[in-house]
C-alpha cells in the first residue's frame, strides 16, 4: 500500500469515527431535547387544560376553545378525563368513555399531584397526566403522538449523516490534498531514487521545502552526486578494465609474436645453422596457443636463384610428403604458388591448388606464406590448419611478421656465410702473401748471396784477367747485388711486421728517442732537439724504434742545409698523442705526399741516395697497426714535418698521462 494511502487512511478513518460519534452524540442529545420539549409542551398544555377544567368546573365553564386548540395540534391523539379509579370519564373520543384508562396504559401508576408523563414506545405515543380537582381525584390525560418526534429523529439523523458525510467528504478532500502535498516531496524522492536506480545518475530531485524533507532532498541530491561520481568512476573503471582486457589480449598476442621473433633473432645471433633455426622457427610458430595451427609444417628456401623451393626444415611431416616436397618448382602446389605470386596462399581444405597429394593424405588446410626480401622471394613458410578452418587475418599477419624476420635472418646468415668465406679467403690470402714475401725473399737471397760470392771471387781470382771496363762492370754488378739484397731485406722486414708479434712493454720515449738519435749518429752539422716531454707508452719497443729511426734517419739522410735542424715534438690531441718530426731539409712536393708512403717509392734516384723506399711504408704500417695516422706537411726548400698519432687509450694512456705529469714536475 502506498505511503500516501497509509497516511491518508490514518488521517481519514479516525476523522470519520470521531465525526460519526460526535454526530451521533449531538443527534441523541438533540432528540432527547426534542422529546423533553414535546413532553414538556404537552405537559404544559395538559396542566393548563386541567387547570382550566378545574376552574371551569367551579365556574361551570368548559374549556372548549382550549380543547379545540389542543385537538388541532399536530401530535394530538386524544384527551381523557380520568377518575382516580382509572375510568375514563370524558374523552374526545366518546368510545373510550367508561373504559379503564389503565387497560390502555398499564404502566401508568397513580398520578402524583404535579403530573406525570409516560412514553409508550410500542405505540409510538406519549401520555401526560395532569391531576386536578380538590382532592386531585381527576386527572387530565393528554395523549400525543411521537410520530413527529420519529420524523424529527430521522431528520436529525438525515441532517447529521448529511453533515457528517459532507464534513467527512470535505475532510477527505482536504486531507487528500494535505497528504498529497505532504507526500509529494517523498514521492519526488522516491521517483528520483527509482530514476537513479534505473541508471539515470544525472537525475536530481526538486524539493524546495525548508523542513526535514528539504534537508532530506538536499542530502539525497548530494548522495546522488556522490553516487554519480562513484558510478562514473566505476563506469570508467569498468570501461578501462574491459579496454585493458582487450589490450591485454592484444598485448599477449604481441608478446607471443615478439617472443617468437625475439627467440628467432637471438637464436640467429648464436652459432646455429640456418636449418636448425628454421626448424626452431616452425616449432615456435606452431606452439602459439591462439594461433590455430597444427604442430607441423615446413620451411622452403630458394637456392642459387633457381626458381625452385627446397625443403630446408620440416616438423612432423609424413615421409611421403618429405620426399614429394623435397623440391617444389615455383607455381606448383600451394607453396609454389605462394613463391610465384609472393602472396600468402590460404586453403581450408585440400583443393585443386594442392597438387602434391598421395593416397590416404589426411584432410587439412594451409597457410603458405612467402618469405620475401626486397621484392625477392627467398622461400616459403608452410603451416597446417585443420580442415574447415576459417581464414584469420591476424594469423596471416603473424606469419607474415615471422616471415619478414626470417627473411632478414636468412639474408644475414647468407651474408655472414659469404662474409666468413671472404674473410677466410682474405686471411689465407694475407697469410699466403706474408709467407710468400718471407719465403720468396729468403729464396731470392740465397742465389743472390751466391752471385755476390762468385762475383767477388771472380773479381779477386781473375783480377789480372780484367781490364778497367771489366772491373767497373763487376763492381756495378756487385753494387746492384747489394741493392737487391737491401730490397729483399726491406720486404722481409715489412712482411715480418704482420707475421711477428712482440710483447708490449712500457717504453719511456724520453729515454728511447735519445738512444735512437745516438744510434743514427747524425753529423755535427745537424742538431736534433726534443722540444716536448715525451710520454711513456705501452707498445712493442722494436716497432716504435723503427718508427723514430726511419723518420729521423730520413731527415738526416736527405738534409741539404749546412745547418740542419730536426725537431721532435709531441702534443695531446683528442685522445691521441700527436708526434712530429720536423726538419729544415729540401721539403717534399705536395703531389708526393701520398706516394712517399707507398712501398719501394723514393723520390731521389737510387744512385744519388741509397734507399730501399721501404722505411716510410714500414712506419705507416706500424702507426696504422696501433690505430694511428701518419701524414706529412711540407714546403719545398723549407723543410718537411712528419706527423703521426697514437691513440692514448691503447697506448696505456692513463699511465702515460701520469708519467707525463711526473716528468713535467721534475
Amino acid at each position, binding site marked *: 500500500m502506498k505511503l500516501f494511502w497509509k497516511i491518508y487512511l490514518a488521517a481519514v478513518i479516525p476523522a470519520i469515527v470521531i465525526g460519526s460519534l460526535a454526530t451521533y452524540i449531538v443527534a441523541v442529545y438533540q432528540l432527547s431535547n426534542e422529546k423533553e420539549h414535546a413532553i414538556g409542551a404537552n405537559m404544559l398544555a395538559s396542566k393548563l387544560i386541567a387547570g382550566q377544567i378545574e376552574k371551569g368546573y367551579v365556574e361551570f365553564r368548559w374549556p372548549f376553545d382550549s380543547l379545540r386548540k389542543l385537538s388541532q395540534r399536530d401530535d394530538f391523539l386524544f384527551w381523557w378525563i380520568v377518575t382516580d379509579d382509572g375510568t375514563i370519564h370524558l374523552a374526545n373520543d366518546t368510545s373510550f368513555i367508561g373504559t379503564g384508562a389503565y387497560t390502555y396504559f398499564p404502566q401508568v401508576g397513580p398520578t402524583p399531584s404535579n403530573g406525570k408523563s409516560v412514553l409508550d414506545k410500542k405505540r409510538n405515543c406519549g401520555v401526560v397526566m395532569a391531576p386536578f380537582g380538590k382532592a386531585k381525584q381527576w386527572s387530565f390525560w393528554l395523549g400525543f403522538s411521537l410520530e413527529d418526534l420519529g420524523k424529527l429523529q430521522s431528520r436529525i439523523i438525515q441532517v447529521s449523516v448529511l453533515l457528517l458525510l459532507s464534513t467527512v467528504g470535505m475532510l477527505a478532500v482536504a486531507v487528500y490534498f494535505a497528504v498529497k502535498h505532504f507526500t509529494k516531496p517523498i514521492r519526488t524522492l522516491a521517483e528520483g531514487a527509482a530514476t537513479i536506480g534505473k541508471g539515470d545518475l544525472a537525475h536530481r530531485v526538486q524539493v524546495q521545502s525548508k523542513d526535514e524533507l528539504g534537508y532530506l532532498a538536499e542530502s539525497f541530491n548530494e548522495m546522488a552526486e556522490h553516487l554519480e561520481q562513484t558510478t562514473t568512476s566505476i563506469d570508467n573503471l569498468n570501461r578501462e578494465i574491459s579496454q585493458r582486457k582487450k589490450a591485454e589480449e592484444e598485448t599477449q598476442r604481441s608478446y607471443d609474436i615478439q617472443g617468437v621473433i625475439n627467440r628467432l633473432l637471438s637464436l640467429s645471433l648464436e652459432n646455429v645453422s640456418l636449418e636448425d633455426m628454421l626448424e626452431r622457427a616452425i616449432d615456435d610458430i606452431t606452439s602459439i596457443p591462439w594461433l590455430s595451427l597444427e604442430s607441423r609444417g615446413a620451411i622452403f628456401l630458394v637456392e642459387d636463384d633457381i626458381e625452385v623451393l627446397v625443403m630446408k626444415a620440416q616438423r612432423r611431416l609424413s615421409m611421403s610428403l618429405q620426399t614429394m616436397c623435397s623440391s617444389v618448382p615455383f607455381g606448383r602446389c600451394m607453396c609454389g604458388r605462394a613463391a610465384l605470386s609472393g602472396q600468402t596462399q590460404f586453403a581450408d581444405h585440400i583443393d585443386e591448388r594442392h597438387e602434391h597429394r598421395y593416397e590416404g593424405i589426411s584432410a587439412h588446410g594451409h597457410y603458405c606464406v612467402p618469405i620475401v626480401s626486397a621484392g625477392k622471394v627467398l622461400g616459403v613458410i608452410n603451416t597446417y590448419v585443420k580442415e574447415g578452418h576459417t581464414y584469420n587475418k591476424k594469423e596471416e599477419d603473424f606469419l607474415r611478421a615471422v616471415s619478414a624476420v626470417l627473411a632478414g635472418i636468412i639474408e644475414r646468415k647468407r651474408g655472414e656465410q659469404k662474409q666468413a668465406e671472404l674473410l677466410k679467403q682474405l686471411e689465407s690470402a694475407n697469410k699466403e702473401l706474408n709467407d710468400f714475401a718471407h719465403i720468396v725473399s*729468403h729464396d731470392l*737471397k*740465397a742465389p*743472390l*748471396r*751466391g752471385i*755476390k*760470392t*762468385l762475383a*767477388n*771471387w771472380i773479381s779477386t781470382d781473375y783480377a789480372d784477367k780484367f781490364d778497367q771496363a771489366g772491373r767497373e762492370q763487376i763492381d756495378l754488378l756487385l753494387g746492384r747485388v*747489394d741493392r737487391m*739484397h737491401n730490397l729483399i731485406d726491406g720486404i*722481409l722486414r715489412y712482411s*715480418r711486421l704482420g707475421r*711477428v708479434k712482440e710483447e708490449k712493454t712500457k717504453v719511456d720515449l724520453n729515454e728511447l728517442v735519445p738512444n735512437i738519435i745516438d744510434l743514427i749518429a747524425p753529423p755535427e752539422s745537424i742538431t736534433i732537439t726534443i722540444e716536448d716531454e715525451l710520454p711513456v707508452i705501452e707498445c712493442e719497443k722494436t716497432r716504435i724504434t723503427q718508427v723514430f729511426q726511419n723518420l729521423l734517419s730520413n731527415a738526416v739522410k736527405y738534409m741539404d742545409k749546412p745547418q740542419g735542424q730536426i725537431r721532435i715534438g709531441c702534443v695531446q690531441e683528442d685522445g691521441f698523442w700527436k708526434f712530429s718530426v720536423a726538419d729544415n731539409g729540401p721539403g717534399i712536393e705536395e703531389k708526393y705526399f701520398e706516394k712517399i708512403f707507398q712501398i719501394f717509392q723514393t723520390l731521389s734516384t737510387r744512385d744519388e741516395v741509397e734507399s730501399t723506399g721501404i722505411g716510410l711504408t714500414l712506419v705507416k704500417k706500424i702507426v696504422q697497426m696501433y690505430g694511428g695516422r701518419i701524414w706529412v706537411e711540407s714546403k719545398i726548400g723549407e723543410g718537411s714535418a712528419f706527423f703521426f698519432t697514437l691513440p692514448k687509450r691503447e697506448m696505456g694512456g692513463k699511465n702515460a698521462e701520469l708519467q707525463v705529469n711526473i716528468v713535467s714536475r721534475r
Partner: protein
Amino acid sequence: MRNSKSILLVEDDNVDAMTVKRAFKDLKVLNPLVITTNGEEALQYLRNESNEKPCVTLLDLNMPKMDGIEFLKVVKADETLRKIPVVVLTTSKEESDIVESFNLGVAGYIVKPVDYKRFVEAIRAIDLYWTLSELPDGG
C-alpha cells in the same frame, strides 16, 4: 781447431759450401770438412759407425728434406750425438730461429755475412773459438 777431427758442414747451397771450403783454405784450417746437403744426410753420416764423429757441426737452417731445426731436435735427443757442438751458420735473422736454436742447445748462431771477407772473419772466429775451447772427447 783444437784437434784434427773432421768438421761436419750441413749446407744445401753449393756456393755457400764452397765459401766455407775456401775460407777454411784461406785460414789454413786443416780439419777435414765433411759436407752433407741436408739434415737427413747429416744424420746418416753421424749414425754411420764407420764414420768418425766430427768435432763441430756447422749447420744451415733452411734446407730441403730435413731442415736445421728438425736436425737439431733429433741430434739433441740423441745421447751419443748431443755433445757434438753445433754452430748455426744461416742467412736467417729471424728471432724465432735464433731462440729455437739456442733452446735446442746450439753453441753459436752466426748469420752468414754476404761479403766474403766478413764471411772469412766469421769462420776465423769459429776456428779461434774452438781452438781455445775444450771439446768433448768424440766417441
